[in-house]
């Protein structure tokens, strides 16, 4: 069903300039596929507002459908599968409009080509991230399916010499209703390719959906339960050697000297590769490579960050928030409102650096030849991977072939191309293909981290205890400023501020400032729910503090602020009802709540936690109500929420990367802990049904959980935690 990888297609005709705007014709253009079938290509609108079209049967802009004479429907997928179910949900869009079973749609990974496969919601970067694959594909992929269906019907009507309105597409065939005649898509494909592309097509009405909204079985899973699925780490080109590496333990350090006699004596070790800031051992198998690496004696020049400690980084952020920053949002007059306030509440919050710790450690396989380079990798950014490999290998782009693979956990880690660059650097010195596999220790200690942030937040309450003023200023790294520089403007970017601005609450006076402060030497990157994973913790903890200051119930207080956000109000009401909010609990057990609107999805979570006498926190139950607009696959929505919640609890309880003397202190799953099955809560998910445009689902569950947990800890113990991860020593019961 799923083709695990495809070769890049080198020859792509230049796209011809499009008409203005996003007319029907620039969106979709049909042509004959190489095999004579119907090829329908579609251009997602690019960031500059211009759609691309192609000529003839050449390669198509952006995603495209191919229907062969054998009836095979192929969807070239611009979005990658990393567990979030996109290999099922995106084909559902096509299958719905094409009136075929989901099993009829075969997937191919899109080759690297930013022009054609750029994500319109990520400024045209060919990337899968920000929980937006369904949002980006929702209109254009359904339109593509509808146009294909319309043309197949037209072709059948022409062949039978009947009125197209008397024909209907169903189950991969066109049927002439009055006579009962039918003909398969495969038989029609060649004719359909010669039909004019309709100027407009009607998309199916939501009430007519057969697939969208149903819990379709995932297409990628059978191969994942019997060991046959091929992740990047599993590729084995003939003659491949395995390498593992040690990178400078201090960011920015360099290799001074290497003593490799013992390493070279290890059976199976073939070669030691020296780079400026890393050493790799190339061997017949990873066992020998690891043994060789352990036998190496490497002297490092630690460089300028040799004495860096994370507490200094945090102190710098704290200091920074004493000064004003870029204004992310201003409503009303906060200063005047604070001056009038009856009660003032102030707090500071802090969140740590976090590693991704994907289960599949970083890896990339590369074969550099004189005249070309081949790369095998699971990447969230195919085109960037290709460009990085080309640049590092010193080859033109069209000499670099990238095979994309299933991803054993992305979470933003594979939006970066550092691992590709590293592998190509090594492969340039190796004769034949080499698979560079990072140990877990390298993976954690040379990650690019979710940034640490420091927040200074205050509010003024009116005579009824409601927030008359809300003032939030925070400092930390901007990932967008590095990853997508045009997205960083006037000191702001949309990711770092998401969840801190445009709150669901009706706040008459609100002021939010951000200060970009980059940690010296420590690379930062996207993470699951990046900006919101920080901001929602702060805002939803602080609104809880305000409810406490106002001596009001945490849910009722929020409800009173949600009149202008009915969808948020509805999910909160639903979660509170299902969770039994207000029902009595035992001592040291508490309920906490959070509400958010991030990734275009409304969500409320209510958790129950139990805090033992020694301070240990157990999250017992999570109730989540979600309104993500139209639901494509409700089972995937549930799965993603369960997943995001576990990811967020892991971070809240354990997640923290610290540096001492320039070195990351955490190494493996003993010092960078993950939530395990015996700690996992019961999770209930309630989905609000409506026909709003779909929202993102991959990350929303993660950002909502941390404040719900700490709010519940407050309810259970009276201790307000303003720093993550949760400090259990602060929760010990006095003897």
């Amino acid at each position, binding site marked *: 069903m799923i083709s695990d990888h495809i070769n890049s297609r080198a020859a792509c005709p230049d796209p011809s300039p499009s008409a203005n705007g996003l007319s029907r014709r620039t969106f979709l253009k049909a042509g004959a596929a190489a095999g004579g079938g119907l090829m329908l290509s579609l251009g997602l609108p690019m960031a500059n507002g211009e759609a691309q079209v192609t000529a003839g049967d050449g390669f198509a802009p952006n995603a495209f459908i191919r229907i062969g004479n054998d009836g095979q429907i192929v969807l070239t997928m611009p979005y990658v599968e990393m567990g979030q179910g996109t290999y099922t949900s995106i084909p559902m869009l096509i299958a719905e409009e094409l009136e075929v079973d989901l099993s009829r749609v075969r997937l191919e990974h899109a080759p690297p080509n930013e022009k054609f496969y750029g994500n319109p919601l990520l400024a045209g970067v060919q990337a899968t991230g920000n929980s937006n694959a369904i949002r980006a594909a929702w209109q254009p992929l359904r339109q593509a399916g509808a146009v294909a269906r319309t043309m197949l019907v037209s072709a059948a009507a022409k062949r039978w010499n009947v009125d197209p309105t008397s024909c209907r597409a169903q189950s991969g065939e066109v049927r002439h209703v009055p006579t009962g005649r039918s003909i398969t898509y495969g038989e029609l494909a060649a004719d359909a390719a010669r039909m004019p592309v309709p100027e407009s097509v009607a998309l199916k009405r939501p009430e007519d959906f057969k697939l969208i909204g149903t819990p379709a079985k995932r297409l990628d899973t059978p191969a994942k339960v019997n060991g046959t699925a091929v992740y990047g780490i599993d590729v084995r080109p003939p003659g491949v050697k395995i390498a593992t590496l040690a990178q400078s333990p201090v960011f920015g350090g360099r290799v001074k000297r290497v003593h490799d006699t013992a390493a070279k004596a290890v059976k199976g070790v073939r070669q030691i590769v020296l780079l400026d800031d890393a050493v790799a051992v190339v061997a017949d*198998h990873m066992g020998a490579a690891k043994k060789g690496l352990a036998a190496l004696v490497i002297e490092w020049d630690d460089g300028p960050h040799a004495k860096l400690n994370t507490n200094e980084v945090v102190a710098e952020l704290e200091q920074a928030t004493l000064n004003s920053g870029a204004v992310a949002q201003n409503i009303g007059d906060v200063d005047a409102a604070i001056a009038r306030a009856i009660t003032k509440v102030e707090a500071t919050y802090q969140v740590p650096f976090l590693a991704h710790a*994907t*289960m599949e*450690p970083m890896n990339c396989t590369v074969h550099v030849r004189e005249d070309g380079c081949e790369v095998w990798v699971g990447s969230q950014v195919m085109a960037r991977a290709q460009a990085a490999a080309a640049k590092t290998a010193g080859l033109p782009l069209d000499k670099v072939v990238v095979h994309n693979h299933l991803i054993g956990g992305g979470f933003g880690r594979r939006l970066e191309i550092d691992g590709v660059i590293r592998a190509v650097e090594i492969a340039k010195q190796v004769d034949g293909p080499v698979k560079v596999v990072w140990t877990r220790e390298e993976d954690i200690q040379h990650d690019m981290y979710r940034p640490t942030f420091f927040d200074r937040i205050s509010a003024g309450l009116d005579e009824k205890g409601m927030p008359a003023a809300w003032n939030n200023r925070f400092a930390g790294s901007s990932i967008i400023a590095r990853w997508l520089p045009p997205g960083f403007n006037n000191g702001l970017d949309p990711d770092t501020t998401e969840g801190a601005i445009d709150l669901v609450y009706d706040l008459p006076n609100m002021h939010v400032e951000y200060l970009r402060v980059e940690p010296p030497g420590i690379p930062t990157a996207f993470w699951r729910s990046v900006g919101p994973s920080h901001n929602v913790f702060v805002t939803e903890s602080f609104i809880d503090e305000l409810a406490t200051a106002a001596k009001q119930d945490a849910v009722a207080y929020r409800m009173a602020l949600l009149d202008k956000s009915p969808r948020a109000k509805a999910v909160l009401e639903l979660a509170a009802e299902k969770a039994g909010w207000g029902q009595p609990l035992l001592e040291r057990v508490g309920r906490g709540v959070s509400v958010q609107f991030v990734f275009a999805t409304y969500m409320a979570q209510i958790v129950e936690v139990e805090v033992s006498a020694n301070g240990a926190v157990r999250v017992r139950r999570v109730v989540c109500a979600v309104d993500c607009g139209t639901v494509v696959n409700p089972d995937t929505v549930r799965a993603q929420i369960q997943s995001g919640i576990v990811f967020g609890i892991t971070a809240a309880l354990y997640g923290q990367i610290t540096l001492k003397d320039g070195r990351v202190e955490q190494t493996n*799953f003993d010092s960078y802990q993950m939530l395990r099955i015996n700690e996992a809560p019961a999770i209930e998910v309630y989905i609000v049904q409506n026909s709003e445009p779909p929202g993102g689902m991959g990350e929303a569950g993660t950002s909502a959980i941390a404040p719900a947990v700490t709010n519940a800890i407050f309810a259970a113990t009276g201790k307000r935690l303003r720093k993550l991860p949760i400090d259990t020593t602060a929760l010990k019961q006095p003897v």
Partner: protein
Amino acid sequence: MATTIRVNGIDRTVDVDGDTPLLWVLRDVLGMTGTKFGCGMALCGACTVHVDGVAIRSCITPIDSIGTSEITTIEAIGATAAGAKIQKAWLDREVVQCGYCQSGQIMSASALLASNPHPTDSDIDGAMAGNICRCGTYVRIREAIKQAAQSN
């Protein structure tokens, strides 16, 4: 030094150091990549295989410690009654997300079910707590094991 091990019913002879972990022999020497590398320290369970039916972490199991024992990997677990039930339950319950840890999860769950046809929640915790899933599929893993047990 040549060592012979019996994997999924077939004798395989490999020429590696005796202290080489079984994981790398399976993946890199024999090309059986269904068994995954996660941590190298028996902390995550991604590398779980069966030795004489018992779930072990292949990343810390030296090849010279196995002797004539029968090794079973994810590639062959479907041929066992418990393994087939677990795989089916995994698909029925849509457990899998990224899937990278699931070979190990299925091997741990199959060993549990083979030795304990009706595991309690606490039995499941005991057998499965060594397997990390970063996608957080724990809720469904628990349901799937219970479903598989019901068919016993």
